[in-house]
C-alpha cells in the first residue's frame, strides 16, 4: 500500500524540490511588482515629476507692498481628494513683476503660518516660529526661513511651481 517509504530518498522527495522551485519563482514574480507598487511614491523619477506650474490668478489681485493669502489647486489632484486639493500660500507683491510666494508650512514642523500685517510678521501657532515679511527667520525654533515657490508672471497672471509638501528635505 504505502510504497513511498521504500523508495530511495532522491526519488521520493523529488517533487519537494520542484515545489520549492515553483513557489520561489512565484514569490519573486509576485514580489517584484509588489515592492515596486509600494515604493513608487518615493522613487526619484516620480519625485522629479511632482510639481507643475499652477496659476494664482491675475496679479492685480495682489496690491503692491502687501502680503495676501492665495490658494491654488493641487496640479495632481484626484477626484477623491476633497478639501485637501486646495492649498494656500502667502503672496507678497514687492513691485511690478517682483513677488515672493511663501509656502503656508512653517519650516519647523509644517504648521500653517499666519501673516500679521500690523507687526509685519508671520507667526506659527504650533511652536511660535516667527518670520519677517521677506520670509527670513525672526525668532523661534525653525531652522531656516519660510519656503518659497518659484514663480513667473505670464499674460498678467502669477504662476508658481507647486505640487509637493515643502519640508527640509525638499523645499517648495
Amino acid at each position: 500500500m504505502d510504497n513511498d517509504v521504500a523508495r530511495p530518498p532522491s526519488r521520493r522527495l523529488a517533487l519537494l524540490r520542484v515545489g520549492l522551485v515553483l513557489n520561489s519563482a512565484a514569490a519573486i514574480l509576485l514580489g517584484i511588482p509588489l515592492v515596486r507598487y509600494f515604493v513608487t511614491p518615493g522613487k526619484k523619477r516620480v519625485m522629479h515629476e511632482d510639481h507643475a506650474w499652477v496659476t494664482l490668478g491675475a496679479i492685480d489681485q495682489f496690491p503692491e507692498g502687501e502680503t495676501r493669502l492665495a490658494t491654488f489647486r493641487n496640479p495632481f489632484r484626484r477626484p477623491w481628494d476633497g478639501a485637501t486639493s486646495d492649498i494656500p500660500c502667502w503672496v507678497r507683491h514687492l513691485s511690478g513683476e517682483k513677488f515672493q510666494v511663501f509656502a503656508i508650512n512653517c519650516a519647523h514642523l509644517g504648521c500653517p503660518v499666519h501673516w500679521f500685517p500690523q507687526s509685519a510678521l508671520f507667526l506659527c501657532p504650533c511652536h511660535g516660529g516667527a518670520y519677517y515679511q521677506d520670509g527670513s527667520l525672526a525668532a523661534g525654533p525653525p531652522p531656516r526661513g519660510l519656503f518659497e515657490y518659484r514663480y513667473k508672471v505670464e499674460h498678467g497672471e502669477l504662476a508658481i511651481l507647486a505640487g509637493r509638501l515643502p519640508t527640509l528635505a525638499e523645499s517648495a
Partner: protein
Amino acid sequence: MRRLRALWEWMDRRLQLAAPIVDMARHRVPRSTASWAYVFGSVTLVLFLLQIVTGVCLALTYVPSAAGAWSSLQTLNHDVPAGWFLRAMHFWGSTFMVGVLLVHMAQVFLFGAFKYPRELTWMFGVILLLCTLGMAFTGQVLRFDQDAYWGIGIGASIMGRIPLIGASLVHLLLGGPIIAGDTLSRFFALHVFIVPGLLLTFAALHVWMVLKLGINEWPMPGRVVTRERYVREYEELTRKDGIPFVPDAFQKDLTAAGLVVLAVIACAAFFGPYGPSGPPDPTIVRANPRPDFFFLWLYAALSLLPRDLETPLLLTAPVIGLALIFLLPLYSGVGEKHWSRRPLSVLGVLFVGVVFAALTWYAEKTPWSPHMDAWSGDPLPARYLKSRSPLERQGALVLQGKQCRNCHALDGAGGQRGPALDEVATRLTEDELIRQVLQGGGNMPAYAKNLSPPEVTALVAFLETLRGEHLAPARDPAQLELRKATAASPAQP
C-alpha cells in the same frame, strides 16, 4: 442541558480543542502571581479586543476617502443611532489601552520579568508598544480633521529631516508629494490591516510565551536569576507552591478587566466622542493644530529643543532610547529581580514618568505659542493708563497695535512666548529697552524696520512706566558708578 452537552461533545470530537484549553486553563502558576499587580497585561489584551470590536463597527459607516471621511464622522456623531457612543468607546478604549500598556510595562520592568528566560517576551512586548503607538497615530489621522491634516504635516516634516532618504520617506508616508486622498488611503490600510495584523501576531506570540515559560514569580531580594538554575527553581516553585491559573489567578484578571471596561464605558458615555475638529481644509489657515493626548509630550519637547540640536536629537534620541529598551534583556538578562536591589531601574521609571507628566502638562498650557488674538482681544488694564502722559498713552497704543501682546502678557492676559511686561522697567533701563525693541534677540524679532522713531520713543516711554507696585526702575550700573564718582569729588578743578 443534556442536549447542549451532547452537541458540544459531538463538536469537540471533531474540533479536539477542549483538552488543550483545559490544560492551558489549569496549568499551575506560582501562588505569588495571583496578585493585582499582575493584571495589567491581560487588561491590555481585553482592551485590544474591545478596540477590534468597536473599530469594525465604525468601519461599517466610516468612508476612508479624503473627500468623505470628515462628513462620515459627522454622520456617525449625529445621525447613526449610538454612532457617537461607538466613536467615544473607540477613542477612550485607545486612551486606556495606551495607559494600561504603559503601567504593564513599568510593572514588568520593576519586577524584573524581562530577565532569563523571558527575554523575547519583553522584546515582542516592545514591538507591541510601538504598534500600539502606531495605531494611536494612524487613528488620529483617520479622524481626518484639521488636527489630523497638520499632524501628518508634522510627521512628514520630522521625516524630512532624515539625511539622504528624507525626501523619499516623506513621499512614502504621504503616498505622494503632498497630503491628499492617497495619504488617507495609506493610513487607513495601516490602521485597519497592517498594524492590527502585526499586533495580533505579536500579541499571540507574547501570550504563547507567557503560557509556555510561566508567569514571572513575585521577586524576592537576594533571589538571583542564573541561566543554570532558574528554570529548575521555577518548576520546583510551581510544583510546591503553585495554584491553577484558572480560577485562582484568573479571578483577579477577570475582575480588573471588567472594572476597566466599565470605566471606558463610563468615560465614553460621560465625555462623548473626541472630535472631529474643523474640516481638513488647508485653506482655513487659522488652525491651531494639537496632537492627541499620547503625543502631547512630544509636541512639548519639540518646542524646547535648542534649534541646532533639534535635528540631531530628533534623529538619534528615539533610536538610542528604543535600542536601550528593546535590548534591555540582552544586557541585563540575569541577576537580581527585586526593585529594592535595582535602584537605578526605579529611578529610571520615576524619571521617565516625571518627564512625560511634566511635558504633557506643559503641552496643555503651550506657553510657547503666541496668542494670535491677544492684541485685539485682551484690553490694556485701565490702571496702566491712569495719570500717564499723552506720549506714554500713545506708546500703549503702539504696544497693542503692533501685537506685542501676542507674545507678552500684561496683568496675566496675553501670550507667554516672551516675558510678561508688568515690571519690565525694573529689569531693563531705557537704553536696554530701545535696544531690545529695535534689535530683538533672545527669541524676539527685531522691530527696527517696522517701527518709526516716534513710535519707538512712545513705546519705550510707556514701557518705562511698567514698574509694578513701588519697585525701583532698573539702573545702568555704569551710570551709577559715574554719578558716585562725580559726587565724591566735587572740588575737582
